[in-house]
């Protein structure tokens, strides 16, 4: 029993890191741009389907590089062409715009790749299990944990240690101030949206051997990702990480212990966090509440 629980925790950490990758993009776009990106799940789906397409020609690892680049470019285009003209309007409009895009993207995926799910298996090198002592672990899940952790670290270093990244973080606290200081904030918006898209695509690509590749895969991940953002605190990088890990582990444990309630447990956690700490674990008081 303790054995399986430990393994479920590891699975949960793998899922949690994927959720964290999704949530980082969502939360920074939200914090900086005040946009709830309903199409974030669609970008995740596109990441996975990019791997499906390039897998045969280039293999798994190069595909992991292609997915974020291709989808990142799509993100830049969406921001520049569709979202930019309507920033000045009510946030409702960008929400509805990305909602429309999510519907369009899901059907486009069906048209291009068909309705049927694609079976994806991890590459040769990472299939099978790794024995630690006498405990078996899926090699691929460990790989997902390591790669996502590295990606989160890189993103964090970018945000916290580079001039550009610090400007972006400053923008999530007070974008008017950043604008007044003479920084071209529109360029930052495009960049951040592209970065979020690339991270979502990577999450989708990494998830494909674990969670399967199917047209609705984006809709199935976006709700837990939203919950992670709220639990962690909007606009907070640390919140996305901690929130992602806790939601991932709780889902995995619930699947083992109370399978029927596995989806609902997340929302109970959400309600609890809201009651005890309404701004989320790492949220800033007042941010986004107006």
């Amino acid at each position: 029993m303790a054995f399986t629980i430990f393994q479920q925790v590891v699975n949960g950490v793998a899922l949690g890191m994927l959720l964290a990758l999704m949530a980082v993009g969502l939360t920074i776009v939200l914090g900086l741009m005040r946009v709830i990106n309903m199409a974030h799940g669609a970008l995740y789906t596109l990441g996975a389907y990019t791997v499906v397409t390039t897998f045969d020609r280039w293999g798994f690892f190069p595909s992991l590089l292609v997915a974020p680049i291709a989808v990142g470019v799509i993100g830049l285009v969406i921001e520049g062409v569709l979202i930019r003209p309507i920033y000045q309007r009510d946030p409702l409009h960008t929400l509805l715009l990305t909602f429309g895009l999510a519907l369009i993207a899901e059907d486009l995926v069906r048209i291009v790749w068909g309705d049927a799910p694609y079976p994806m298996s991890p590459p040769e090198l990472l299939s099978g299990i790794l024995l630690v002592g006498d405990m078996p672990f899926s090699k691929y899940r460990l790989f997902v944990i390591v790669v996502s952790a590295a990606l989160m670290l890189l993103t964090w270093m970018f945000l916290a240690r580079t001039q550009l990244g610090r400007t972006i973080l400053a923008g999530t606290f007070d974008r008017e101030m950043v604008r007044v200081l003479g920084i071209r904030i529109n360029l930052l918006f495009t960049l951040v949206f592209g970065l979020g898209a690339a991270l979502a695509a990577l999450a989708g690509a990494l998830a494909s051997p674990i969670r399967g590749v199917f047209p609705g895969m984006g809709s199935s991940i976006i709700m837990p990702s939203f919950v992670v953002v709220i639990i962690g605190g909007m606009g907070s990088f640390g919140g996305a990480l901690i929130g992602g890990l806790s939601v991932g582990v709780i889902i995995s444990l619930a699947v083992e212990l109370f399978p029927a309630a596995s989806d609902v447990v997340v929302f109970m956690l959400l309600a609890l966090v809201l009651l005890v700490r309404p701004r989320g674990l790492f949220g800033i008081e007042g941010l986004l509440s107006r």
Partner: protein
Amino acid sequence: MRSILALAVLLAAAPLLIVPLGGYHALLSEMVIFAVFAIGFNLLLGYTGILSFGHAAYFGLAGYTMGLLLIHSALPLWAAMLAGVVVAGMAAVIIGLLIIRKAGIYFAMLTIAFGQMFFFVAMRWKSLTGGEDGLSDIPRKAFFGIDLSSPVRFYYFCAVVCLAAAVVAWRVIHSRFGDVLRAIRENEARSAAIGYDVRRYKLAAFVISALFAAVSGTLYVLLLRYAFPQTMDWIRSGNVVVMSLVGGLGTFSGPIVGATLITFLSNYISFHTKYWQLVMGAVFVVFVMFFPRGIAGYVLEAWRRIRR
């Protein structure tokens, strides 16, 4: 009141106009049912300025509750409908109390999350809800002795409910309460400063719109005689937002125009292609980008210009 009269005439005459054009009564009923949903939603989004992206939860919850009661109990139809609406209303009060302090997109995001919770419960609680298969063969009992089994009669039943919903919404909008809601939309801080308990008014608007959603949900389940989890998912919540926007936010006729048009279009498109989401998504994007004030918004403006 002229709008109400016009609506009554339209609702009464609609079958005569639509059926010869190849429409059918079930589609008309569906259009009217979603109009009820959108009329209530407009009170929240259009008049109070609060965006909920989770109202399908109350729509679905009322439908499931009524369906379960009709299947497992001997309650008459009116009592089952009432129970469904009351249960959904209570859920709205609880969730509203939990999240109404939040504003703007934070609030919207919370409604998405809590709305989806109901979807998952319906999917997972198989012994009660039938899981993915839903509840089928829900009987459409008589309403105070009025038999509703024929499509025409059921349409007129929905039409009467829709008219009643429009009258209630009209009364709400043109009351002191409605004035306060509009004041909150225009400037929340100032409304609070004058002494209005803003949070209580917002909660009331939230619950009232959820009650409209609930009434609409019970009718929808009666129409299909079937309740299924997708009635509650976020796509449906998004659809009612889109109906309100396409029709025209904050106008009285907007939600009715938007709901009937979008319902008609999505039926028409899904009849011709299985990729109807693609077409609908494109319609939304075009409206958001280029016609954000909605059909009624532009028509009313044109009408004012002509009269001037």
